[in-house]
């Protein structure tokens, strides 16, 4: 028995009470158990955390998918095969409008989620609708760009550079379109079912997805369009 402190039996009881799983006291790290953070004290995390994290991991895989198309673009940006160069097809004004639309839609998406957290159905739907409309503006502008180019005979079949240009930008547009379909489904679900836990979980996932698309767009407008002006 030590001079300082309590009898061993009391010590043992204190240890069991404070550290029931004998995880040991760590000099670093949090002193209170954090659910789902892996330090082991709390068991499986709440479904909200699990769903959100799983979707985060999916998003990382999607980012890797985009990076392959970026890599292909980087490799092929000079492969014009005697056809038009990047500088000749870039329309900065339109890209500016597309960027503004997508950035604003990310903002309204955040606001809709704030409304969801406040359990306000009306404002959730309103901001989701605005998000969807802004996304639609983005997609329509992009379609307009593609149709105009095709009208001039500038198609992905013309050269390697055009293939990877249309591929990268088109893949992003496809994601935005899919996101739009998902958004419409979510709006219907919120209308019919309200803010049940699984609906909120899906809205968390949708938010992650929409913001990630804007992050990818930052990469695209910088590397493809802005850097392409001088190509």
């Amino acid at each position, binding site marked *: 028995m030590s001079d300082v402190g309590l009898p061993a039996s009391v010590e043992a009881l204190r240890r069991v009470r404070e550290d029931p799983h004998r995880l040991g006291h760590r000099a670093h790290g949090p002193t209170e158990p954090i659910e789902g953070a892996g330090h082991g004290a709390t068991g499986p995390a*709440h479904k909200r955390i699990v769903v959100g994290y799983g979707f985060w991991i999916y998003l990382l895989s999607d980012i890797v998918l985009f990076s392959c198309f970026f890599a292909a673009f980087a490799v092929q940006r000079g492969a014009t095969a005697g056809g038009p160069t990047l500088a000749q097809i870039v329309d900065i004004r339109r890209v500016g409008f597309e960027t503004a639309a997508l950035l604003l839609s990310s903002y309204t998406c955040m606001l809709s989620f704030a409304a969801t957290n406040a359990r306000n159905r009306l404002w959730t739907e309103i901001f989701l609708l605005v998000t969807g409309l802004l996304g639609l503006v983005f997609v329509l502008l992009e379609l307009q760009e593609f149709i105009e180019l095709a009208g001039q005979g500038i198609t992905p079949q013309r050269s390697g550079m055009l293939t990877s240009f249309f591929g990268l930008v088109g893949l992003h547009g496809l994601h935005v379109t899919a996101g739009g379909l998902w958004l419409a489904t979510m709006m219907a679900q919120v209308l019919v079912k309200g803010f049940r836990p699984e609906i909120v979980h899906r809205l*968390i996932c949708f938010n992650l997805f929409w913001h990630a698309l804007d992050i990818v767009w930052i990469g695209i407008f910088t590397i493809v369009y802005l850097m392409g002006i001088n190509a």
Partner: protein
Amino acid sequence: MSNPASEPHLYSGASHGQHDHAPGDEPAESAGHWVRNANLGLGFSIVLTVAAFLLAGSHLVYPPAIPVALIVLAIAQMGVHLVFFLHITTGPDNTNNVLALAFGIMVVFLIVIGSIWIMDNLNRNMMPMEQPMEMQP
């Protein structure tokens, strides 16, 4: 619809750090905090976007430095999105998220930079072709 009985995780604990967070997730009591993040994020993003658009194709900066400047602005804006819209922080409740993100960034870096390096070397060593259809080095 949301109350302490049905969603105790949203209402328990006085401190934030009691619960792990998925990216972009906040407990209910921080709705105002959420809007503030959105406004800040939008503001910074607009500044960075406008700067990038003005910089490209202009002569405000030493021209060969423009691509680097654009990339810096892009990375900064991606950071703004991650922090303000997706709420990635360095808190202990976010460690898993940050680690996963770091892993993803590493993979993206390897694929993009690795491919550029490898393909550039391959192309440089490729036999010259007669027609002017090959890639520029």
